[in-house]
């Protein structure tokens, strides 16, 4: 029998044990705490425990399971809320009350519920690993395709008839070429630290449309792409993750609350259950799964939560869905790595983080991608990871290492947040490397003017940035009129376009065609105002017309479904400018 020898926080050591394998899942002690083997030597096997070790004694038994830490994949994942090691928090609440106790075991998915299964194979068919053999309507939005698991392929020997089954029922039997019979149920297990296989990676060419103007227009992310969102506290990281999770055009949302606030997760749960998806008119929760490992839950499970989330995302991708993963916050995950590394007395690299931090970050973000799945569907996993840099200093290791592996960088800015300019994405520090990959799509789907207008916006903002340097030194009044106009148009862009009100009915989500119309209107205003200045009229007269502020309020005043109203604004601009004497 293997016994606990040493205990230090979540790290437990076993002496003289040789039969464990690395990354094996183990049960520790009489409470059967879940743990994972992280290092083995002749003298000691080191285990990190995913639950609180308070009360654990040396000499208690450790049971090996023979499999790595895995998640249970099957119908019932969506609309659910799990902790970092996929225990359903609803069921734990029913079973144990308000507080989570160590050693709680509850099956991840509901084993009693009967699902209506429709089969796609018949007796005698040949099936391959990853092929869809049946489906169930998991929610009214999502058809859950049951895929042949774990490298099984062969001939279908028996198939149940369409009807209601529980997830653990054997519904199909497959005989492989060696004559072994495999029993398929609706669930399969998959190790969380191993990426699920795909046929091929495809180039990224379609944007993940978020309805957030600053993202879709200036710094778009591709489906299958990765984005890092660093920002000090209070700059709106979580708010932004929520906005994207609510409005982006992915089929499935995996929201990982990693080491964050409990109240926030409750809010997400409440809000997503109430909110209606504008495209399908169904509650958003029907396409969402929440992984909640709040900051006061055990730290090792925080490390696991990221992998649990991404594995679930890959599973839905394999069904041919576009999945968006929100990881809030990856810094807490990195800190969990640091904490465990410290307890293992490993040699630290930068700021106490372990030397393998960059490779872990890379492994995580590389699980994103636009792929051809094993069953020849196209699916994608996009990852949007929030980063909480210490002291809002972007030179710290997590931000820097994330920057190396993501292609979108949305830097949140404290100054903008202080002025309540949300989304507080700083347009000078942020970038997206996807714009070239996506240009074809924008040209075809939105219109060729879109990227053109975008470029003009970027130029104007850069000019403003330069002019502001001067203004900071000598004030605005000494600038010539045409530069004052540039500043004013830049203000219209900042306040009327980039700034977006998440609490406003019309403004919280803006479709791309309205984004384009808004840009065109602002650029038209610039063009006409320039012309008026050229005619020798003073800029102060232009300001008096109030037309700039009218254009700023277009975002509220024109509803998303009445874009014809834009025509009135062109007239309004013409009239206002003509009236200047």
């Amino acid at each position: 029998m293997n016994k606990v020898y040493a205990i230090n926080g979540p790290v437990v050591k076993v002496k003289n044990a040789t039969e464990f394998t690395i990354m094996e899942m183990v049960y520790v002690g009489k409470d059967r705490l879940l743990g994972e083997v992280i290092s083995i030597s002749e003298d000691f096997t080191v285990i990190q425990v995913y639950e609180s070790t308070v009360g654990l004694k040396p000499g208690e038994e450790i049971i090996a399971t023979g499999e790595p830490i895995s998640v249970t994949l099957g119908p019932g994942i969506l609309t659910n809320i799990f902790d970092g090691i996929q225990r359903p928090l609803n069921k734990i609440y029913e079973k144990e009350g308000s507080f989570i106790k160590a050693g709680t075991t509850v099956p991840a998915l509901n084993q009693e519920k009967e699902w209506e299964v429709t089969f796609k194979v018949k007796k005698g068919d040949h099936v391959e690993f990853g092929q869809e053999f049946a489906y169930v309507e998991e929610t009214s939005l999502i058809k859950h395709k049951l895929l042949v698991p774990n490298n099984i392929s062969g001939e279908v020997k028996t198939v149940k008839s369409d009807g209601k089954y529980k997830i653990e029922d054997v519904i199909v039997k497959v005989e492989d070429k060696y004559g072994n019979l495999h029993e398929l149920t609706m669930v399969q297990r998959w190790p969380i630290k191993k990426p699920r296989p795909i046929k091929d990676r495809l180039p990224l060419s379609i944007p993940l449309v978020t309805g957030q103007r600053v993202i879709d227009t200036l710094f778009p992310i591709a489906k299958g792409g990765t984005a890092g969102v660093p920002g000090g506290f209070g700059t709106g990281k979580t708010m932004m993750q929520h906005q994207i999770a609510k409005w982006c055009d992915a089929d499935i949302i995996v929201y990982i609350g990693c080491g964050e606030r409990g109240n926030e997760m409750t809010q997400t749960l409440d809000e997503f259950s109430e909110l209606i998806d504008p495209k399908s008119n169904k509650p958003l929760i029907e396409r969402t799964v929440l992984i909640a490992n709040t900051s006061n839950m055990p730290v090792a499970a925080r490390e696991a939560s990221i992998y649990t989330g991404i594995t679930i995302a890959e599973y839905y991708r394999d069904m041919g869905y576009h999945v968006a993963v929100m990881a809030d916050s990856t810094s807490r995950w990195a800190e969990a790595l640091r904490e465990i590394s410290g307890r293992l007395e490993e040699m630290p690299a930068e700021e106490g983080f372990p030397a393998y931090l960059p490779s872990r970050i890379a492994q995580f973000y590389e699980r994103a991608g636009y792929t051809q799945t094993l069953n020849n569907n196209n699916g994608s996993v996009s990852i949007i990871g929030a980063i909480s840099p210490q002291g809002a200093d972007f030179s710290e290791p997590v931000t820097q290492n994330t920057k190396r592996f993501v292609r979108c960088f949305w830097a949140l800015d404290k100054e903008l947040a202080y002025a309540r300019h949300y989304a507080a994405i700083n347009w000078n520090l942020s970038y997206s490397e996807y714009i070239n990959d996506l240009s074809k799509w924008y040209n075809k789907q939105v219109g060729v003017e879109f990227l053109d207008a975008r470029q003009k916006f970027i130029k104007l903002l850069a000019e403003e940035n330069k002019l502001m340097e001067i203004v900071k030194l000598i004030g605005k009044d000494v600038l010539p009129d045409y530069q004052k106009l540039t500043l004013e148009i830049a203000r219209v862009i900042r306040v009327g376009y980039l700034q977006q009100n998440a609490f406003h009915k019309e403004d919280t989500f803006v479709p791309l065609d309205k984004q384009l119309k808004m840009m065109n209107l602002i650029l038209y205003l610039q063009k006409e105002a320039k012309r008026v200045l050229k005619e020798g009229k003073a800029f102060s007269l232009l300001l008096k017309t109030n037309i700039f502020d009218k254009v700023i309020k277009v975002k509220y005043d024109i509803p998303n479904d009445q874009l014809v109203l834009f025509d009135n604004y062109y007239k309004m601009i013409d009239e206002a400018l003509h009236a200047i004497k």
Partner: protein
Amino acid sequence: MDLQYIGLKEINGPLIFLENVKGISFEEMVEIKLDNGQTRHGRVVEINGDLVAILVFEGTHNLSLRNTTIKFSGHAMKIGMSENVLGRVFNGLGEPIDNLGHVFVSKYLDINGSALNPVARVYPRNYINTGVSSIDGLTTLIRGQKLPIFSGSGMPHNDLAVQIVQQAKLSDEKDEKFAIVFAAMGVTNDVANYFKKSFEEAGVLDKVAMYLNLADDPIIERILTPRCALTAAEYLAYEKDIHVLVVMTDMTAYCEALREFSSSKGEIPGRKGYPGYLYSDLASLFERAGIIKDSDGSVTQIPILSMPNDDITHPIPDLTGYITEGQIVLDRELHQKGIYPPIGVLPSLSRLMKDGIGSGYTRDDHQSLMNQLFASYARVMDARSLASVIGEDELSIVDKKYMNFGKYFEEYFISQGHKSRTITETLDLGWKLLSILPKQELDRTDEMILERFYDKEEAINYFNIKDKTIIKELKKEDN
């Protein structure tokens, strides 16, 4: 099976080490008896085979390798709880120090608590009317929230905390019960007495449970002080349906105690020598605020921390800000101007306010007003930094108006002294201030709300603006 062990293997800082120990569990409580009859307490912090490290709360002075007897209790640290803790004073270990004898105990609770299941939480929505405009109007405190005060030495954070406690109308309905749990960590006797006196003046002393670990008390006890206090708060809130306000001061002293403990354990330090798990450790305290479905009570936390050197990027305020739901930041410049409470509204934030204000909670225009005040006051800062370069006279007319607005905003809105304002007073005052600015500058509010609240005449009367040029300037953009 009370096993006793005589003698130690090693003493190092607050830690003692024992050899050949069997059958003890991680984080178990121990009792240490000295030859001279003293009793101290400790906790198992590491087990390595039969070698055990024990953290002694009261310190290891006078301990030698020979003069001690150690007794293991067989369980993690628990304290006795009942409603009778209200009106009492305890030390950092939860032992009464007010000479009123033992507290009648109805339940023993683990001071570390357990993680609250997010599913069991109720999302906090009811605001607490603190009577302080900068808080009610701009960083609204919500019942069940954790909202720290970031301060610095010499600033009136204690006054503000007391004012909040005194003015907070914790119960909208009369029959709702409320209580205050006060945890002092490393503060001076004077500060503790100040709080005690203030609670007395407010007539709530019988509703306060005080946990005191003062500046000259053992530092390791400090690590347990907030845990004892929060255990009491959770018990009162979740088992007795009481609305509990927890005031914890000073979190910086707590973190320093944690650092001392960590370094004596020989752990690898993180930033500024604080342990790498400082975030998790603070989270295990702050996350104990909230409301749960199964009870009518709530735990609201107001931790106070003094920022070393007024540096908000220091690890303690930084990590705190990442855990808490916003922060109230005190500003030294305002303090020096004689403004009380000196709340720097721009870096202050309440994350939960968005769902706890507006119609049905405060008033429908609250959100718009708040956004506009923040945006306009941020512009004031720009104008001021420009003025410091080119001089105030050279500013444009609009910038001058902002300077004016900034002055009134600080003098009337932020600076309110010790009197309490209702939420209506606060909101109306906000609109009067915005009315000093030209209407087209108010780009965060929509037309309809402006129509209702924008009133120049009233602003001129209210602020008693006599200066003819200013009045003329104010009225000019009306056409």
